[in-house]
């Protein structure tokens, strides 16, 4: 479903991804782990189409199409969704308004009619309830003054509403309390389906207890350094990233000096 080949990406003239390969078949959930600065968020942003991430080599194919040729909103329409590590705040725009605009934009792009107000409200309430989001919160401006955990839950709410085919979750579990991790994981699991693929970026095995991945990839220094089954995450929990460490640390240092 998603095919990443030899992906090289520069940010501000510095190479962050250095030949990344990854294949994500439909229906599977893959976890991506790896030390800080190894390029996990960079990969997520490149998939979503963020500007200033310059692809210098390689390809990304999504459902047989060249994903990199699409504009960000076209990717959203084609079913790509990124749950941000740091969701943005938009003052003055009610969360509900934002959700509705997004849902209708994606529906329009997919040739579906806009949802009527009552239909939309019903849908939001239902999804919010599953994620234990207080509907009152949705009247507040988008992410403004939301706690870290509320922001993350709001990301998953958007995901549930937009029903994407490729879900990329960038550290959605960071900042969540123990109960919230379970609630969010349930939300994610509810979306698992044979025609949907997920890429779950995380630092913690704990999330993978709930969202059991089909594969685990360890990113180090802009490449997939190792791949394995769900047990790989357990192993990393024990041993850390020591075996991948040297190269990354050296890179980080030179980066800091530059």
């Amino acid at each position: 479903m998603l095919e990443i080949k030899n992906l090289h990406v520069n940010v501000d003239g510095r190479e962050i991804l250095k030949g990344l390969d990854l294949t994500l078949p439909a229906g599977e959930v893959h976890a991506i782990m790896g030390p800080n600065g190894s390029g996990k968020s960079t990969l997520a942003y490149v998939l979503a189409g963020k500007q200033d991430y310059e692809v210098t080599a390689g390809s990304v194919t999504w459902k047989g199409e060249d994903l990199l040729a699409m504009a960000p909103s076209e990717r959203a329409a084609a079913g790509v969704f990124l749950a941000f590590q740091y969701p943005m705040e938009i003052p003055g725009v009610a969360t509900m308004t934002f959700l509705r605009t997004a849902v209708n934009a994606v529906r329009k792009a997919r040739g579906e009619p806009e949802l009527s107000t009552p239909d939309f409200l019903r849908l939001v309430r239902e999804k919010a309830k599953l994620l234990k989001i207080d509907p009152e919160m949705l009247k507040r401006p988008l992410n403004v003054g939301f706690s870290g955990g509320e922001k993350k839950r709001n990301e998953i709410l958007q995901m549930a509403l937009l029903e994407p085919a490729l879900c990329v979750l960038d550290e959605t579990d960071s900042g969540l309390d123990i109960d919230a991790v379970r609630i969010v994981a349930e939300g994610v699991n509810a979306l698992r389906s044979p025609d949907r693929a997920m890429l779950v970026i995380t630092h913690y095995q704990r999330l993978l207890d709930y969202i059991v991945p089909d594969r685990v990839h360890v990113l180090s220094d802009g490449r997939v350094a190792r791949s394995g089954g769900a047990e790989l995450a357990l192993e990393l929990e024990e041993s850390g990233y020591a075996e991948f460490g040297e190269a990354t640390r050296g890179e980080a240092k030179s980066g800091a000096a530059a």
Partner: protein
Amino acid sequence: MPAVQETVARVREIDVDKYKYGFTTDIESVRAPKGLNEETVRFISAKKGEPDWLLDWRLEAYRRWITMQEPTWANVVHPKIDFQDLYYYSAPKSTEGPKSLADVDPELLETYAKLGIPLAEQKLLAGVKESRVAVDAVFDSVSVVTTFKEELAKAGVIFCSVSEAVKTHPELVRKYLGSVVPITDNFYATLNSAVFSDGSFVYVPPGVRCPMELSTYFRINAENTGQFERTLIIADKGAYVSYLEGCTAPMRDENQLHAAVVELVALDDAEIKYSTVQNWYPGDKHGKGGIYNFVTKRGDCRGARAKISWTQVETGSAITWKYPSCILRGDGSRGEFYSIAISNGYQQVDSGTKMIHLGKDTSSRIISKGIAAGHSNNTYRGLVSAHRRASNARNFTNCDSLLIGDKCGAHTVPYIEAKNASATFEHEATTSKISDDQLFYCLSRGLSAEEAVALIVNGFVRDVLQHLPMEFMAETQKLIGISLEGSVG
């Protein structure tokens, strides 16, 4: 190219050149000879069959005006205006006669229909009761029709063109005209006093709550014609009125001058709410053409506990020079100013307000949202002052600027003068940019760049939007869209 710049580029291309109201209407008109001298003033006054006192008033203004210099303190640049190269009076020929709806040139009615102004009362009557708006339509220099007049008259409300009021209610006009903005006030106001063509007149008698929103639509049509309308609104003791003003003009290569004067008078316990959606032609993407909008708007809270509230949405004009102000003369009176000023292309906006606290326990509130895109320049200029006698004067000012792209400018110029130690003046100001990250967040949720900008800007102006009458709210949200996203529709 970062997303913001790309958006700005696209906006510049689409929006500015697709000014929705840029059509002209083919209509025969009667014009005064080009240029300005005493004869022009006499011509205008004679055309309107004005009494001598008004002609004298105009002539006094004219004589004063020729001794005055154009103000240069505003943060705007434009070539020198040749005041002799303009027409000062232009009227559709067909309106020189009786003025009922049936007598109005169908071409004119069609123009207003194109502008989305439901002039025909039947259409309004078909709508919900609350949404009825009485309209006075001003075309070039004259008022062509005023709707709902009879129904308003039943409530005792006078709503007509100023020229008509001069004939039917001379005592009111004479008492209040120039009482808020004297003929000596400033270069443009003085010019207006000499040559003002038409505008709306409103009088709401004591204790009357005007039963519907009153509205004027101004349209400049004729070429090389200045529009100098004069609006006078009086709310007598305990009266209430809400007044909406909308404006459009065709696309023309030459700049056209618009210098209006609006005077509001609120007596004891009266309230006037004045809302404007200003959408004059802003010029093309190279900054060619567009309206020069030099307007003097002032409200006088003449009575105790009077309240005047200005709400403005400024999206048009090549140059906007405009400071709707409140003189808080009555004890316990209150002034408000809510403003959204959007500039794009090569537009220049220098706008703000003056809150002059003269009475005791007066309060004022200023919320200004400036949005600059393209190569535009957007300045907030505001004065808050407290007179020696104005004990316990209170003001709260909040000025926020939002920049889209990096070729535009936003400036805040607040003047504060407190001559009474008990005054409490608070001032807050912020400047922000739509960040690429915010835009990307929206794009990644499927919004187009235009939708994203419109959404973020609508969020930014929310505090002000809430103060607009229902009739204008939807229109404004759409206008913000058109001004900034370019999704013409």
